[in-house]
């Protein structure tokens, strides 16, 4: 029993990321309002970012900035890799956040244009008005 518990606890970040991602995915497909759909899209993307950031965590490690910067000079051998968090996922996710906000901006602009044309941002009503054309 305690094995199962440790197993679940040692990965709980991953369980929650899956839950968040599925909430986002469900909202993107099933919600009728487009603003809601795009909020779901943002949740979906942040869940993936959470997954990436979780892969780079080391227990007991500090932030990926060298202590005392230039003071130690070029004494590379003295740095213990286990002492710092993994910087690579952070870099990748900085890019992913930027891409996410850019996509959200474009999506919202399209929502505004659609609202201009059909006076609604609900999917069924847009489809209804398209059928009338």
């Amino acid at each position, binding site marked *: 029993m305690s094995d199962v518990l440790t197993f679940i606890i040692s990965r709980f970040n991953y369980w929650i990321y899956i839950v968040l991602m599925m909430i986002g995915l469900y909202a993107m497909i099933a919600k009728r309002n487009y603003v809601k759909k795009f909020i779901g899209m943002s949740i979906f993307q942040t869940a993936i970012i959470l997954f*990436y950031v979780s892969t780079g965590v080391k227990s007991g490690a500090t932030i990926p900035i060298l202590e005392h910067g230039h003071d130690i000079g070029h004494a590379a051998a003295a740095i213990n890799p286990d002492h710092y968090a993994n910087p690579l996922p952070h870099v990748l996710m900085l890019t992913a956040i930027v891409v996410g906000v*850019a996509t959200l901006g474009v999506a919202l602009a399209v929502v505004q244009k659609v609202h201009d044309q059909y006076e609604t941002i609900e999917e069924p009503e847009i489809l209804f008005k398209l059928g009338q054309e």
Partner: protein
Amino acid sequence: MSENLPFLVIAAPLFGALVASLVGWARPRYCYAIAMVSLAAGLTAAIALLVKVSGTVSGYEYRLGGWPPPIGIQHWVDPLSALILVVITAVAFLAVMSARANLQLELPGKERFVYPLMLLMVTGLSGMTLTGDAFNLYVLLEITSLSSYALVAIGRGRAAASCLNYIIMGTIGASFYLLGVGYLYLKTGSLNMIDLRQIMIAGDMHGSQTVITGFILITVGFWIKMGLYPLHGWLPNAYSFAPHAASNLMAPLMTKVSVYVSLRMMLSVFTPDFLAVHALWAQTALLVATIAIIAGSLIAYSQTDVKKLLCYLVVAEVGYMAGGMWLMNRAGITGTIYHIAADAFMTCCLFLGASGLIASTGSRHIRSFRGATRRMPWTFAAFLVGGLSMIGVPPTCGFFSKWFLIQGAIEGGAWHFVAALIFSSLINALIFFRIIELAYFKDVEHEDDVSHPPQVQRNEAPWGIRIPLFITSVVIVLLGVFSPRVINWIERFVDSVGVT
């Protein structure tokens, strides 16, 4: 300087986009010239790259920032990527050449946005072809997607509404890819494609659940991006309601590059051995592709809107390539790669022809082909070359790709796929013979509308569309005539990755 060719291919359209967006503010009419010059530079660099690769054994790498591969980002140029790069830049050149005539009719005053966005899209597409880094590919995929969302949404009428669906599906696809790369990263610790392959072979990870899920996520992500049948929902609306200038560029290139990346992932990251272990997945994918071909063809046959018809033909063609790559034998892969090149030009030809037709008649209905042989003999003849190639008539390139695909399917024992390919050819023949019948045998006078003069007026498409259309149709025939050389070139790559 010749060492820096891979960067030139990407930098030319990128700088073109920057300059065009600046100049376009004050003088929108110069945008077209800037776009053409930068695309011509990109095309030249791509051809030079092809020549350079032909001199090497298996290709060469270009280290961005000078860092060795797993640490930094690497461009990997091999025969396959060099070939696809030339196809992309050539089709982009032709499609953008036709953009001015279309834009004057559809979206006057938006040139200063359309050309930079088109150039950014070409930047992303060429980058996706060249890059050897899995995450870099995601960034380039997103720049391509963002510019294509904008190019669709900029249109009139239903374009914006169909773009919303496109954005949602496109984001799901790209995010699945990102997640798949994350899974591979979690298991291997690397992002470089070649490095990923080596680590997975060395660590014997092909049976690992994480790697399999990563593979499924990447594959499904690109299925959404390429518009394979059950996931194709966004494609027909987005491409047919987009402005013609945009759909001429997007329809030939977006799906093909997604197919290319999917193939690259299968062959260069997950080796054929990995796919041999999971044969059930291959059979499922082949079945999906078979359904895609049949469904795409049947829906295309029932359409009366010319652009929608072509869009569903694209859906069927995606089925060809998605199925062909899962045959996993020499002829099948060769046919798929050849079909990527052939289909890019075929689709480009058909969409250019359709936009020419719409530009001169003003109607999108298939009936507007009536009397086309008299009213616009040249435009229609060039359009027909694309159609014949789609059917698979011998001198054109469509015949040879279909030949190899069928050969590969017979070798692999995938009889349902063979049947689907032949069925789709028959439907294509029906579609295009119906168009020929309309164009040749039904005259404009036969219409109820008597206001037309009895003497049919010549009403060709504008020169701006006709010239790229002619060039494309000539390329289709040339690609067919020189197919042995192209096939040799492709087989060099196929042998190097160890497909038997």
